[in-house]
């Protein structure tokens, strides 16, 4: 869900939509919920960006991409990295979650269900390939800090699960 009380000026949205997460290219920075503020003042676009994880290497790239995207339409952008409030998977938009699933990454479960699959062996994560929940955890850590590795016991495909972060 896109949090409504965020101060993101409407006329900046089309440009923000063109900047994506380099590791999940189908998700724009707006889908991901990492833009916490975007306002234009005296011809300069001020953006507040928050990292998904502290060490997320995508943040530097996203910052550069934002500046580049705005410079292409002749605007200067300044990007400030903010830590508080800390990013949560709740900030990923519904549209973003759907794109993520289509891309082959299972969407985050609720906090308590997430614990059950990552700590216990409950079968709740839905395979993005065949839709089965007959899946099991392979590794708590995946290709990036935000994901865990699962395997589907029906279609046998391994896949990434986007961990719940709250």
């Amino acid at each position: 869900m896109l949090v409504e009380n965020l101060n993101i000026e409407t006329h900046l949205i089309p440009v923000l939509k063109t900047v994506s997460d380099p590791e999940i290219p189908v998700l724009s920075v707006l889908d991901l919920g990492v833009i916490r503020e975007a306002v234009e003042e005296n011809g300069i676009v001020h953006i507040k960006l928050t990292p998904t994880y502290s060490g997320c290497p995508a943040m530097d790239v996203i910052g550069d991409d934002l500046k580049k995207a705005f410079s292409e339409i002749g605007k200067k952008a300044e990007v400030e990295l903010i830590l508080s409030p800390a990013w949560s998977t709740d900030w990923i938009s519904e549209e973003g979650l759907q794109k993520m699933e289509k891309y082959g990454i299972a969407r985050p479960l609720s906090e308590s269900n997430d614990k059950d699959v990552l700590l216990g062996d409950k079968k709740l994560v839905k395979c993005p390939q065949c839709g089965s929940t007959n899946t099991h955890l392979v590794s708590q850590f995946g290709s990036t800090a935000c994901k865990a590795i699962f395997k589907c016991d029906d279609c046998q495909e391994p896949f990434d699960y986007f961990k719940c972060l709250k």
Partner: protein
Amino acid sequence: MNFNFILKEMKNQQLYNYILTIADNSLILAQRLGELCGHGPNLETDIALTNISLDLLGQTRSYYQYAAKISGENKTEDDIAFLRIEREYKNCLLVEQPNTHFGYTIARQFLFDVYHLMLMEKLQNSPDETLAAIAKKGIKEVSYHKRFSSDWVKRLGDGTEESKAKMQEAIDDLWRYTDELFFMTEAEKEMTKEGIGINISAFKEKYYEEVSEILKEATLTIPENKYFTKGGKEGVHSEHMGYLLADLQYMQRTYPNMTW
């Protein structure tokens, strides 16, 4: 220079030292875990350990950026990370211990994670907004680290005869470094007095309780060794530190001021 100015400078210096006391643990442990990139016992644990390393490095960067800002000098986060001499690093001895074997790496991680999470839980309520924000962000990551390391302690401890023996040996060996986690340096005492820092000695008992509980679950024996060693937090490191720093600082020392 008036008296108030000097007082403010002194406080800043203590805050600077305090930040490094926390941050250096994360940097040095991140470096140790980073050494395992491509060398983990299997793909999943390799990725897990380097992911943890990355989280810690991210936290370190936030701390160092803050420290650089208040240092009053023209310092950057990189200067703080790469250009200090060994005696100026304030990490505890535990985190600099080498990756002797996988069980050893896990034991080191576990003994640190339990402490680290307790510290973050307190630090997130510090009146210092930057420290509180870094902690609040880090807490989610650190609780995941702790989950990973304690799971492995149980798996190896309650595993085969060999894994159990190796895990026990690692815990016995690293136990001597745990007491230092709760040793308060001048900066920590000073900042606690100011209400910004955390009185870590207050949760020592809780730490040993929690660690013992997980060790019991792992069918391991809780060490009775009462001989503890310390020094890292005051810059007196073990023989492993020099080699670690040689690796860490190599690029900046060889090609001064190089950037990406």
